[in-house]
């Protein structure tokens, strides 16, 4: 099981690096799909199969399609690096590397609390699986964020259509 985790983690990291370093944006999008699938695999290892399926359906299924449509609309052939030397690029690399080392050391050395809440593995299996347990929590304890999310989706719709109105009429 740890071998599978290391394999999936490795694929996720390598494909994420590919996303930011490929020149052709379509190749970057494919790298992102690979990263999303490996993240979904890691969720399955954590017994969160519903989240894994949602990741594939929504993230790799709808969001990546959106990305690809935008990339096709924009019609970029190949991204070019900025030719002139910008002082910010080495500074950003240094800060990014420092942040990476900082976070890795913290995760290795810190002790996350050993608490087991109500929803341990046996309880979730008794409730009928990850999706059922999630549903029971989501619609009772997290009622308020749930309703606010519906308004959030509505706002995203209204805003996006407002910005694109001129492209719609008269075509």
């Amino acid at each position, binding site marked *: 099981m740890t071998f599978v985790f290391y394999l999936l983690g490795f694929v996720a990291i390598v494909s994420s690096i590919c996303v930011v370093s490929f020149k052709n944006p379509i190749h970057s999008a494919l790298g992102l799909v690979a990263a999303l699938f490996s993240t979904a695999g890691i969720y399955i290892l954590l017994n969160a199969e519903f989240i894994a399926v949602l990741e594939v359906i929504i993230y790799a299924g709808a969001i990546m399609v959106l990305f690809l449509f935008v990339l096709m609309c924009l019609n970029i052939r190949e991204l070019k690096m900025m030719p002139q030397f910008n002082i910010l690029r080495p500074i950003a690399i240094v800060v990014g590397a420092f942040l990476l080392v900082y976070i890795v050391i913290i995760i290795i050395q810190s002790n996350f609390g050993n608490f087991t809440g109500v929803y341990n593995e046996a309880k979730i299996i008794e409730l009928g699986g990850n999706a059922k347990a999630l*549903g029971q929590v989501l619609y009772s304890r997290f009622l308020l964020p749930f309703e606010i999310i*519906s308004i959030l989706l509505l706002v995203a719709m209204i805003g996006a259509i407002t910005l694109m109105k001129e492209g719609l009429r008269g*075509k």
Partner: protein
Amino acid sequence: MVLEYLPVLILMVFALGFAVVTIVMSDMLRPNKPEKVKSSTYECGAPLFTDARGMVSIRFFIISMLFLLFDIEAAFLYPWAINYNVLGLFGFVEIVIFIIILLVGYFYAWRKDALEWE
């Protein structure tokens, strides 16, 4: 519990492997003698003046964005549907409020011509 998903992994490996193996094997087995004329794009013999990428209409983008938003709505409906009897009347009212708010969004998209395909 996790081992129950092993068939999914095997299926993915087979699907990926099938695609990769056919392409790689056919690439290795065929003769490869590229010439300049052979590897240029074919356009019924006429000379080319632009590449194949045209302007994709913005309609595709709007439809896929609306698909994304309603897909997320459906994803919220799945866990509710499984727990329908446990959540009872209160859960029903709560999900109806959720759907009504998104229904307003749907009618908004309809009336603002976002769903037109012309």
